[in-house]
């Protein structure tokens, strides 16, 4: 346009031609593009293990201790005084809907794609639908009725969507997961991506949840048992012999079904910073003292899982902390939070949990008789001394109710810090345990309103939907 004085020529010159990102319209000319966008959906998953996600999944539960008061908004959340403007609800809501947006986006391009084989198209569709279902499953548990979107946004003016009844959300989750189970490949060459049995295991977890509070569709216990057993009986997975070997890995173990992997140079696993009680850290995921004392004698999940009386580099004794995602060599070196990026994997689904789902579902369907085998496999593995049966003794002679309580407790011991605590309390209708255990720390008593978290303020403001019930009312 240099020295050109014609308007049309200049308008041409003002059209932006970016060089660091691409337009969706040209991207899929290359068939590899579809898979790269499906992979992109996974990029939000590590955010679920940051402080915001873990405050809701783990910190607000009966077994967690009081978080560091220095962590912004952690203490009011712990005290049942959380607000719709808190970063945790905003973050959790946005993360899940980002996964849904990215899945819907690629699904809309996969459907009419002509430059893909039919098999590849189905596999990628199944993978995107699995991840969409996974996100909706998180949302429906946290927030109840939520807006359903199954198509991508085409214009910012159409950004509003009403809330759908949670039954409809679960229907969508089941549709997606069943499609995924049918069409995902048997195997994946890339650890971290989903395959057929991941969908099966996820279905077990969804069915178990649907059978519990608040839907209470107890017929699904049967489905949960069926899917859990399908995973167990596939023979593809084996329990790791020692609980301590399950963690501190940077790749799958024999027990892994689906895990999040990390590399330190692109972020790493941030859970050490949320767990470590070393000087200069502000932990929010801590074991309460009653939880530490609740373990049976000789339980590796406590002996290895919870570090007590650990000495910092200056010789001072640190408060007890979960070791699952903590590398103590960082503590010994006196590293500050910026220096403790580790690459430890975090499980979404592992065989240990599937055994406990099988145990719980079996007990609900037919009572404890046939359920002991599943729970005791887990208890036996937890023994510090495998040969000593007094360590974490086998369960026997329990009533159905006693067995139910036993499984609930077993899940806490086994799965602590893996993101199940609040979901389990809600599903089993036992959130009031928080009240029982730490009433003095609560600003408001636990009530049925605790079944849902507040929908974030920015969603309420910008959408045409109502807020969940107020706390304390």
């Amino acid at each position, binding site marked *: 346009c240099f020295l050109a004085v014609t308007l049309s020529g200049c308008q041409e010159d003002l059209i932006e031609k970016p060089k660091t990102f*691409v337009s969706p319209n040209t991207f899929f000319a290359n068939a590899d593009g579809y898979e790269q966008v499906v992979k*992109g959906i996974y990029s939000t998953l590590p955010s679920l293990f940051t402080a915001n996600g873990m405050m809701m999944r783990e910190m607000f539960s009966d077994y967690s201790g009081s978080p560091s008061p220095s962590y*912004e*908004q952690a203490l009011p959340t712990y005290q049942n005084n959380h607000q719709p403007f808190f970063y945790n609800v905003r973050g959790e809501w946005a993360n899940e809907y980002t996964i849904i947006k990215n899945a819907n986006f690629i699904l809309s391009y996969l459907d009419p794609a002509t430059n893909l084989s039919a098999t590849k198209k189905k596999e990628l569709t199944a993978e995107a639908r699995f991840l969409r279902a996974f996100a909706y499953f998180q949302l429906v548990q946290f927030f109840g009725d939520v807006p359903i979107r199954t198509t991508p946004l085409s214009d910012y003016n159409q950004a509003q969507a009403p809330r759908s009844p949670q039954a409809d959300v679960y229907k969508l989750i089941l549709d997606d997961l069943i499609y995924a189970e049918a069409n995902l490949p048997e195997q994946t060459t*890339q650890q971290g991506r989903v395959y057929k049995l991941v969908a099966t295991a996820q279905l077990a977890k969804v069915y178990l949840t649907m059978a519990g509070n608040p839907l209470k569709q107890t017929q699904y216990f049967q489905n949960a048992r069926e899917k859990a057993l399908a995973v167990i009986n596939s023979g593809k997975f084996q329990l790791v012999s020692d609980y301590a070997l399950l963690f501190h890995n*940077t790749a799958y173990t024999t027990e892994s079904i689906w895990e999040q992997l990390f590399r330190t*140079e692109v972020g790493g696993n941030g859970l050490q910073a949320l767990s470590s009680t070393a000087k200069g850290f502000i932990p929010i995921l801590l074991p309460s003292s009653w939880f530490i004392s609740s373990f049976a004698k000789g339980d590796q999940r406590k002996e290895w899982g919870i570090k007590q009386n650990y000495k910092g580099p200056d010789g001072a004794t640190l408060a007890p902390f979960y070791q699952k995602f903590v590398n103590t060599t960082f503590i010994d070196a006196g590293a500050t939070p910026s220096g403790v990026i580790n690459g430890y994997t975090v499980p979404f689904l592992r065989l240990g949990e599937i055994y406990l789902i099988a145990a719980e579902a079996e007990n609900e369907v037919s009572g404890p008789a046939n359920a002991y085998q599943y729970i005791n496999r887990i208890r036996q593995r937890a023994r510090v001394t495998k040969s000593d049966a007094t360590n974490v003794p086998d369960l026997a002679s329990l009533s159905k109710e006693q067995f139910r309580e036993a499984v609930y407790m077993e899940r806490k011991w086994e799965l602590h810090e893996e993101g199940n605590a609040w979901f389990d309390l809600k599903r089993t209708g036992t959130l009031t345990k928080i009240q029982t255990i730490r009433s003095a720390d609560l*600003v408001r008593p636990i009530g049925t309103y605790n079944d849902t978290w507040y929908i974030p303020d920015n969603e309420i403001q910008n959408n045409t939907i109502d807020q969940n019930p107020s706390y304390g009312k």
Partner: protein
Amino acid sequence: VSYAGDVEAQEVLERRVNITIEQATLKQALMQVSQVANVKFVFNSKVIRSDERVSITAHNERLADVLNRLLKPRHVQYEVAGKQIIFSRTEPEASLVPDLQFDSNKPPKITDVSVSGTVQDEKGIGLPGVSIVLKGTNRGSTTDAQGTYRIDVPDASAVLIFSFVGYRSQEVLVGNQTQLNVTLLPDNQSLNEVVVVGYGSVKKSDLTGSVSSVGADKITQVKGISNVAQALQGFAAGVQVNQSSGQPGEAMIIKIRGTNSISGGNAPLYVVDGLPLDGLSAQLNPDDIDRIEVLKDASSTAIYGSRGANGVIIISTKKGKEGKPKISYNGYYGVQSLRKKVDLIGARDFAILQNEVITNDNASGLNTPQKALPWTTAQIDSLGGRGTDWQDLVYRNAIVQNHDLSVSGGSQNLKYYTSFGYYDQDGIIRNSNFKRMSFRVNLSYDISKKLSVSNSFSLQNSIYRQAIYAGADGGGGIPFTTMVIPPTQGPYDANGNYTKFTGVSYGETNPLGLSTELYNPSANLRLIGNTTLVYELVKGLKLNTSVGIDGGYTKSDYYAPSTISIGQPGGKASKGYSNTSTFVTEDYLTYSTIINKHTIDALGGFTYQSNQSENLNSGTGIGFITNDFTNNNISAATTPGLPSTGYSDSKLVSYLGRLNYNFGDKYYVTVTGRYDGSSRFSEDKKFAFFPSGAFAWRISEEPFMKQIPTISTLKLRTTYGFSGNQAIANYQTLARLTNTNVVFSNVNNIAYVQGSLAYNNLKWETTRQLDIGLDLGFLRDRIQLTLDYYDKKTEDLLLNVGLPTSSGFSTVLQNIGAVQNRGFEFQLTTVNTTGALRWNSVVTISHNNTKVLQLENDPQGNPVTYKEVGAGGNWFPIQVGQSINELYGYKVLGIYQTNDEAVKNGEPTKRAGDYKFWDRDGNGVVDGNDRSTLTHLTPKVTFGFNNNLTYKNFNLSLLFVGSLGNDIVNEFRKYNITLNGNWTPTKEAFNQRWTGSGNGFDVPSSKSGSSIRDYANSLWVENGSYVKLRDITLGYTLPTTLLKSAKISSVNVYVSAQNYLTITKYTGYDPEVSWSAASVNGWDRGNYPSMKSITAGLKVDF
């Protein structure tokens, strides 16, 4: 009358002239004739008396005849020399002796001839206070109330200089007279001063808009500054400059007439010698600047259209003048130090505090099992009071020096100015500094009568080292850590390694280690050049064409060795290169003509600008076998980094026009318009038109005002118009797929996600502004007053409008919302005393009120009144009806005296001794709904008060700056009034801690302050008003008699002090504070403290 012999000269005088002039001064008349006849007149101003009024009408008359009619009765003759006509007097007047041949080499003989007389003004009235100096000496006198004087002179060759403000100086040869009466003639120089505006310049008297001018003397008045914006502080009304940081070379926060934009940027446009520049910081040598004009109103800024809304700062660099070469050296050297220390407790008190924390926690049942006290009495006694004084350890005395050498001069056709500047400023934190070498060449050449070319080229090479200071709450932030790290801790541990601050997460290595070991220089080379060609097509019509480039090349080095925590494990290294380049071409026609009383100046043209930026970064390599590589061998890292590159470009195409019309130097009209197209906006929204109009009336030129001699100037100005803002990132309207990283099987995979949708409605942010101004001058402009009122409304804000996050998107940039800025500006320039002691002063006072009028509507159609934008987050939201960012949080009412009181007030988890929050809605629970606005961060008034005093050879300048009526959010206080034994509190907080009753500060406890620590609250709010003696300089000019033999024309030596006096209630380091990471004005999260300094300097002209 003499005629030069050549034919062309005769041709000039034969030109035919049509002109009507009524009651103009002779000078004005001659200027009109010269326009009409297209001939250049040259005259010494002493030849033409400007108080004479003349009238003449000519129809098709010879120029020679017109000149004869005008000049003969006035004893003026003329001669033609080449293409010019030169005037001279036919007979000298006693009171109008032109420059005499005075031999200054001859020392005055000591005899006593007494001369006396009266000095009168042009009306014959005696002038009191006129200064009379014997030329070449310090000998002087002044006139008394009747205008009479008396002075002793050595001999008949003595020359007396009569000077008085508002009047033209006169030099008179004494001769044999003992009675010497003098009539001084008024000098309207201040009105004839030329003001540079966009794409041209106008006489100050013809100005229709609101423009502040700052001259070279003021720009370099304050020593030890690297940044042009900083030089404006206190000198220009309506311009708020905040020196928020003491980091040398740091960019300033500068706002002209308030804050217009919420998301779109508020920095003014800088134009240097006609070239618009982005991001001008410390890369321009202040010594090269001749003057700065700040364009504030819509009429002045509309010529810059889409970039004018935040005001325009026009910088003119020095040019050569005809004459022999002038060589100048200007240099200073100074020492800077921490302005003030914060009064913190020492080691002994800190140990006592830590014991109290454990005691209180044990008593309240917080510790199960109970903990032992960390300190024994013997240990406390052995600590001996202060312990480590971290402020003394970290802050040092630092040197600043500046040397500038320039040569300028020229012939009639070629003029040059060239300079070399060296600026080197160390920061008071170790390893922070800014060094600049700058070179400049300004040339102008008249190739022919019609064609001239000028050229400006500058090169700056700077090295910038920033101390880590922006980290709030840790991250190694040096001012923050220095404040809170315990005095019981030493800088080194038993093994000689640096200790760490572990009181907060991300505490990092102690500030001594961090400032000593981190290597992070950034070197910048900036080349700015432009060439302008002016060609006169026909009489009055000129074509201006210019091309300019602005290229910046930056290299950033980073190496954190393993000896500091941020370098662990094994050292972290990176290297980055970036460059930006801008190309500008501007082509426009100007036309000026005077037809009788009608003066017309018109301008129309076209400009084109393209910007590009690129960068390459190595990514951070981690783990090296040795620290010796620093960042020179990144491939040796055990964990390699991911390299990255970037590219971005934008273009701006504009058409512009302006018409200035004035009738009889009384009525002025300006109409301006610019049609701008920017690549950044949506496809059919790229262009926008920004018109403006102005009207001015010089009431003082009206006959009825001539009756009031006291009022020398009275001008009413009013302007109205539109200007825009396009300060957003490129490519905002495009649909995009963005690459991201996903880890599978322990391998990093490249993947893509949907980044944004296409948005087809993004357009300009527009500010419309009304300005009403008044210029007043009294007593021959000895007192000048400029008043302005403005009312600005910015609409179609470039605002990130919230979306329901369930859509997968959180915000989209749209044109929504409105902000209003209203204010007053007041500038008073006075000559307070004349005579032996001359005292001039300038007072500037500005008041601005920013108010958010409107944000988006929610989907139900209800207006959104609260919005979180950018780094201010939920602490500093945008709220309708208030200024842009205000602290929003809990009000602390005091301290709970009993546990019961806490339960009753709705904070059941708090205990006696904890802070009590206001349950604003009274619903029995303290929660997020109880927050309210806690501050007023925008000053009600900012002001500057500058004084220049001269007595004999001494000169003294004092600059005061200040702001009134603003709060500061001192976030340090969440640490240093908190008594939990992790952080060093202030003595005030420690001495007034809660010990069972009272209302000072909280009870020492490990939970202490936890509930207020990270929740915005009223304990952080402090009064931020201040008055500061920004600079005081005392100079001495060596007597010229001493210098003659050394061929030096003048030498001035001075000492000065900066920031030595500040009156404020603010308890932090400095009330001029703002956290660099956010645009919130007055948010102190631990910025680099400002310094005070003492400098000594020398200015020599050869």
